[in-house]
C-alpha cells in the first residue's frame, strides 16, 4: 500500500494534472447548489463539505440508458465504446462498496457483461471517508463503515488541512504515481489520526438489526408483515433508481427510418410490468410481492447467491421515499 498526503490547497492542482490521464469527476456544486460529481467541463474548485450525493455513482458503470446494439439496414452491430480513463474522486465508502455488488453480477457473472466490464476497466475510484453521517445512514450494520475502503482504488481521509491517500491495489498505485510530484509522504501520525477519526465517526452511525437477515427472511416469506408495509408503497421506483446496488434493467428497441438501437434502461421490481407475462399472468401481482422481492433480493437472495448483502446502508431509499417507507423497520421486525 502506498501512503501519500496532499495539502487541500493543492488538491485542485492535483485533480487538474490527473485530467491529463482522462476524465476527472470530482465533487462540486451544480446549478441548483447541490454537491454532485462534476464532470470534465466543470473545473470548479472541488468541494469536500458534503455528506453524500443524492444520486449514486452507479451510472458511471451501468448508465441509466445504454446502447447495446446499433441497427443499420436490419443488421445488428456492437456500438463503439469510449475508451477514456475515468476517475471518480470523492465517492463515499458506501457507494464504493456497492460497486463490489455490481461486480458480482456483471463482471464475475457467466457470461460477464461486456459493457460493464469495459467501463469498470477504465474507471478508478477514490473513496473519501465520511466525517458526518446522516440519520438515515447504516453502513456499519451491513458490513461497511465511514472509513471503509472496499471497492475503492484509493481511500482518502481528510485530516485538517491535509488529505491522506492510501492506495488499495494496482489501479490505486498507478493513480498515485501519475502526478507524484504533487504528493508528499504521509506520516505514521497521520495514519493513526485517520484511524482515530474513522472510529469516532463509526460511533455516530446508528445501528440497524441486519444480523442473519437471510435466515430471518427465509422464515418470513409468508409473513403478514409484507402486506402491512407494502400498503403505502406507490411503486414509483425512486428507491431503485437511487440505490447504488439496484441493477435490474429493461431492454427496448428504438427505430427511426431504418436505423436505430437496442438500449438497456434501468428498470425496477416495484413496477407491475417488470414481471407481467404475455398471457396476462403476473407472478408478483401486487405491491406486497414486489416490495417483498426488493427486500428478499438485497438481504436474502444476494446472500444465497453471492454470500454478500446487496445493501450498503447509504440510506438513499429512506431519505428520498415520497411516502416514508423505511427498510430498517422491516429489518428490525422481520423474524424478531
Amino acid at each position, binding site marked *: 500500500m502506498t501512503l501519500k498526503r496532499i495539502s487541500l490547497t493543492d488538491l485542485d492542482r492535483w485533480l487538474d494534472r490527473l485530467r491529463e490521464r482522462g476524465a476527472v469527476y470530482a465533487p462540486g456544486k451544480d446549478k441548483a447548489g447541490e454537491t454532485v460529481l462534476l464532470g470534465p467541463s466543470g473545473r470548479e474548485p472541488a468541494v469536500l463539505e458534503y455528506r453524500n450525493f443524492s444520486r449514486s455513482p452507479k451510472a458511471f458503470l451501468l448508465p441509466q440508458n445504454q446502447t*447495446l*446494439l446499433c*441497427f443499420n439496414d*436490419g*443488421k*445488428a452491430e*456492437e456500438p463503439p465504446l469510449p475508451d477514456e480513463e475515468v476517475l471518480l474522486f470523492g465517492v463515499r465508502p458506501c457507494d464504493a462498496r456497492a460497486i463490489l455488488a455490481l461486480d458480482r*453480477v*456483471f463482471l464475475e*457473472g*457467466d*457470461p*460477464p*457483461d*461486456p459493457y460493464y466490464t469495459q467501463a469498470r476497466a477504465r474507471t478508478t475510484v477514490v473513496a473519501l471517508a465520511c466525517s458526518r453521517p446522516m440519520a438515515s445512514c447504516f453502513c456499519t450494520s451491513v458490513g461497511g463503515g465511514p472509513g471503509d475502503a472496499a471497492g475503492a482504488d484509493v481511500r482518502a481521509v481528510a485530516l485538517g488541512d491535509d488529505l491522506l491517500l492510501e492506495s488499495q491495489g494496482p489501479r490505486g498505485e498507478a493513480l498515485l504515481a501519475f502526478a507524484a510530484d504533487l504528493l508528499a509522504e504521509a506520516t505514521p501520525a497521520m495514519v493513526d489520526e485517520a484511524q482515530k477519526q474513522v472510529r469516532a465517526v463509526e460511533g455516530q452511525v446508528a445501528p440497524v438489526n441486519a444480523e442473519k437477515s437471510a435466515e430471518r427472511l427465509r422464515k418470513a*416469506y409468508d409473513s403478514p408483515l409484507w402486506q402491512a408495509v407494502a400498503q403505502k408503497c406507490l411503486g414509483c421506483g425512486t428507491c431503485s433508481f437511487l440505490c447504488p446496488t439496484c*441493477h*435490474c*434493467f*429493461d*431492454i*427496448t*428497441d*428504438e*427505430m427511426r427510418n431504418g436505423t*436505430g438501437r*437496442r438500449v*438497456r434502461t434501468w*428498470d425496477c*421490481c416495484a413496477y407491475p410490468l*417488470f*414481471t*407481467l*407475462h*404475455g*398471457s396476462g*399472468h403476473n*407472478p*408478483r401481482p401486487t405491491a406486497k*410481492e414486489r416490495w417483498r*422481492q426488493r427486500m*428478499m*433480493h438485497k438481504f*436474502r*437472495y444476494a446472500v*444465497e*447467491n453471492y454470500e454478500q448483502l446487496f445493501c450498503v446502508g447509504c440510506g438513499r431509499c429512506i431519505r428520498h421515499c415520497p411516502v416514508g417507507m423505511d427498510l430498517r423497520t422491516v429489518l428490525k421486525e422481520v423474524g424478531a
Partner: protein
Amino acid sequence: MARNPYLPHPARIEGVTVENGVRDIKTFRLAFEDPASAAAFQYLPGQFAELSLPGVGEAPFGIASSPTEAGHLLFSVKRVGLFTTELHSLEPGARVGVRGPMGKPFPWDRLPGKDLVIIGGGFAFATLRAAIQYVLDPANRASFGSLLVIYGARNPGELMYRKDLAEWQARDDLSVHLTVDEPDAGWTQHKGVVTTVLEGLKPTPRNALAIVCGPPVMIRFALLSLGKLGFADDAIILSLEMRMKCGIGKCGRCNIGSKYVCKDGPVFTREELKALPAEY
C-alpha cells in the same frame, strides 16, 4: 474476447407452418446465415433462445427442434403481443436474430436408461417435441426405455405438429395419446384432460422419469396424478416460463427466490421447485 452475449446470430426464416385452427400459433423454421453461428449454437432439448427483430425487440421461446434435426431451428410462437404479432407478419426469407442457446436443458445425463413419460398441454408442447425427436433419433433411441407421450389441447384444431403426431402414432417404439376437451365430429381419440388419460394408463414410476410442460392448471393436476401414481418429486421434471429480457441472469426479473429461470432453469425438478417460493 468471448462473443458479446447481447449480439444475436443472424438467421433467416426458411418456412412458416400455421399450427392451429385459429391460426395464432405458427412454427418458424430458421437457418443461420453464418456457418460460424450454426457451429456456435450447440443446444439440447429443453433450452430456449431469444428471438430478435431489430426495432421491435426480443422475446424468449423454447426451441422446438432437436439438435438431431440438423440444419435448422424450430420455434413455435403464439401471437399475443407486439413482438409476436410482428413475427407472425414475416414470411420466408425475412431476417430474424437468434440469441442463445440459453438455460439448462432437460436432464439428459439422467434420462438415458429410463422409461419416459412426457405430458404436455397447449402450445407449451414445443420443447417436448424437441425431446421426443431427440429420443426417437436412430442414434439415440436405444439409450432410452419406453416412451409414453400424453398431449392434450382444448380441441383437435389446437394440437400442434400434426404431421409429427401422425408419424409418431404410426411407430411402434413409442406410445402417443392425444386428448381434447372439446372433440369435433371426426375425433376418434381421447376426450378430457391429460390427467384422466394419465390415470387410466397408470405408467409405473419404477425406473421412470416424467417431463411435464403446459399451462399452470394442467401442471397442477398432472403433479397430483403423478404423485398418486408414485412418481417421486425428483422424478418429475418441469419447465417454467417467465417474462425475460437479458436471458443471462442479469436483468433481474425472472427469479423465483434466488434462482433465475433464464440461467438456473427453465427446467427444474418438482423437488427443486418445492425448495423455492411459489412465486411463478
